[in-house]
């Protein structure tokens, strides 16, 4: 710590240069924060998926419906605790651009299976009591400014009333919060019974089934047993863990993770050069001084440490500033797509990784100049000055 004033005055001798370097590092870490949040938005579903939940979908594709009669048969499979089902409603609220997921669900079992959607007890009671009731996640409610009690008309294309009209009215019974930051709160859920009655009373099919199993380690075996139940029937099934399905969806969007990593690599490579170049320059300019330091009795190791400490100081200053700005922007401004992403936050794990990276960046950029400074012989240094 006693060397801090020395480090500080070294940074101050060329203020413009130090500020520019810190600014470049700051930019790199703002990008780091944003990209981490974007990656989380796309892969969050995989990370928070329940380990004890399986999904049974039509074998050909998830858009193919399954008979509602499968519910009781799945429930009989040993190891299955509870079964729920969902229908993709695919309706339009005012404008097709206002996209969000709407799902008709078997409400009681749905809330039981998905405890990460948090409702107040009285709100839950209100939902159960209202046939046309719906619960909506915080993100979507905020996006459209909905409050509990609002009446929301949604135009369905796939589900028409018997009279041929396709407008459905829903009452917002509750706005649910997510148990974790990464919980998707963009969904809109309503009663399957409402959908069934509204379409004439014999809908007879669901989109897919969700089920909870007692022992997650038996997922594979139970999946196979369920699929065997419906083998060679008109609607064969494919059962898999929620995680596996979420992963295959993430893969369908594309390798977001890989693209983000590629961009970050380019960013850090660029910044590395900028900062490394600055350090090299400032050491070169100070050759004479370093010689004097050594003459005064500073050891080679101490000189090495001084230069490294200086580059780390620059990088940590810039990094901390960048991470703080990124955190502030992500938390304050929120989702740049205005509610299209299910979650948008700076994951704590990535904040820690960023902090480690600031130090690593300082060490890497400082190493070469520091070693040069260490190897400097007093005579050469003083002569060159």
């Amino acid at each position, binding site marked *: 710590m006693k060397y801090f004033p020395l480090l500080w005055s070294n940074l101050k001798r060329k203020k413009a240069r130090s500020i520019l370097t810190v600014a470049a590092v700051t930019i790199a870490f703002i990008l780091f924060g944003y990209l981490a949040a974007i990656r989380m938005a796309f892969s969050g579903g995989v990370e928070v998926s329940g380990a004890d939940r399986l999904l049974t979908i039509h074998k050909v594709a*998830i858009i193919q419906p399954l008979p509602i009669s499968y519910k009781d048969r799945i429930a009989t499979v040993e190891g299955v605790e509870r079964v729920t089902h969902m229908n993709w409603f695919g309706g339009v609220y005012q404008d097709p651009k206002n996209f969000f997921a709407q799902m008709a669900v078997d409400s009681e079992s749905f809330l039981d299976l998905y405890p990460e959607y948090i409702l107040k007890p009285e709100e839950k009671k209100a939902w159960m009591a209202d046939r046309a009731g719906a619960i909506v996640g915080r993100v979507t409610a905020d996006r459209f400014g909905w409050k509990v009690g609002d009446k929301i008309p949604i135009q369905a294309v796939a589900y028409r009333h018997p009279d041929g009209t396709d407008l459905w009215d829903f009452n917002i019974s509750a706005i649910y919060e997510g148990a974790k930051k990464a919980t998707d709160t963009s969904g809109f859920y309503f009663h399957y019974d409402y959908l069934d009655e509204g379409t004439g009373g014999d809908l007879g099919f669901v989109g897919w089934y969700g089920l909870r199993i007692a022992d997650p380690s038996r997922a594979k075996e139970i999946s196979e047993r369920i699929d065997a139940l419906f083998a060679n029937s008109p609607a064969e099934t494919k059962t898999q863990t929620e995680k596996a399905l979420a992963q*295959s969806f993430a*893969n369908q969007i594309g390798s977001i993770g890989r693209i983000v990593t590629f961009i970050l690599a*380019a960013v850090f490579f660029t910044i590395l050069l900028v900062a490394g170049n600055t350090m090299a*320059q400032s050491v070169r300019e100070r050759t004479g001084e370093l010689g004097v330091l050594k003459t005064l009795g500073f050891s080679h190791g101490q000189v090495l440490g001084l230069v490294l400490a200086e580059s780390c100081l620059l990088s940590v200053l810039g990094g901390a500033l960048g991470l703080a700005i990124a955190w502030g922007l992500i938390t304050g401004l929120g989702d740049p797509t205005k509610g299209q992403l299910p979650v948008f936050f700076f994951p704590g794990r990535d904040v820690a990784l960023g902090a480690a990276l600031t130090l690593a960046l300082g060490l890497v950029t400082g190493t070469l100049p520091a070693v040069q400074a260490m190897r400097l012989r007093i005579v050469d240094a003083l002569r060159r000055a």
Partner: protein
Amino acid sequence: MFQWLSQVAAVTALNLRTIGQRRGASAAAAFGVMGVVAVFVAVLSMAEGFLKTMTSSASPDTAVVLRAGSDSEMMSGIQREETRIIAEAPGVLRGQGPVASSELYVVVDVPKRSTGTDANVPLRGVQPAAFQVRDEVRILQGRNFQPGRNEVIVGKAAAAEFAGLDLGSRLRWGESEWTVVGIFEAGGALSESEIWCDVGVLQPAYRRGSTFQSVYAKLESPEAFNQFKDALTTDPRLDVKVVRETDYYAEQSQLLYGIITGLGFGIAFLMGLGAVFGALNTMYTAVSARTREIATLRALGFQSGPVVVSVLAESLLLALIGGAVGAAAAYFTLNGYQAATMNWASFSQVAFSFAVTPRLLVEALVFSLLMGLVGGLFPAIRAARLPVATALREL
């Protein structure tokens, strides 16, 4: 004027000749710009490639008919009787019959080659007229499917991106088995991501009875669209919406294109700031290393204009070199790179190739020059303002 120009030339030449002495710093500045431009081109070529695939083959004289209120074929539904009325409507091109194809659009799970996980690949049931409506479709290998048989032809891009769609493969979807009898190309269009079969076979296999989802109709001319549209939308027997194929696909690609380009410009702008800081550092150092030279020139009667120009020229040159190398690197590694993503509007996969378009390359170079300009401007001004006497005394 001539004297001014010759001063510019002399000082600039001197600067550029001495870049070699500042090799490290100059290279770092150029590298910074290179990194930014490479990322800029890479991200935007993704957006361009996607847009090209989605919209390139759509033609203004093709109309798409869907059920009123639906945005995509997936959600639409049209009865057989309705398709007849649509095909007979005024404005539809006629060959041996109306050039209109009633189609069914579903997705099937096929594993992606790269990850092995299932993806929603579009399966389109078409009528024979489909090949006249989309006249860019050509069979590349094998043959076309025969009507009435469980045979499919697979788009070139789908065959490359997804596993098990090679010529001769047998596929089981639901209760029926299908054989891949041909691979087709469509000039890089969206249909290359699709699997096609006879709609008459697909309807019973998917229990769709006699319903279709869309009608693609070739019109006599692009101008015939309004006549066709008015005829259908005023017909009391129909409840449909009519869109031009170009508008239909432009609309579907808008969202993703917007997100990727927005992201690309955002990242490039931030990275560009970082690179400009690097360039500023380099140029300030270059100027301060030449303080004595510059002061000497000024003392000899050189004006400040040529000094400014010379510093700017140096930073522009460095940025241009970096930008050109970055753009070239992106072009050679990414142009034509095959990828697939989800088209949310149709809930199905689109295979596309990254497209490093000439416009993108020009934008990249302009962008790098801009970075060079900003990075050189302030140091140049400082160089011009150096008080001659102090600068000479300083050294």
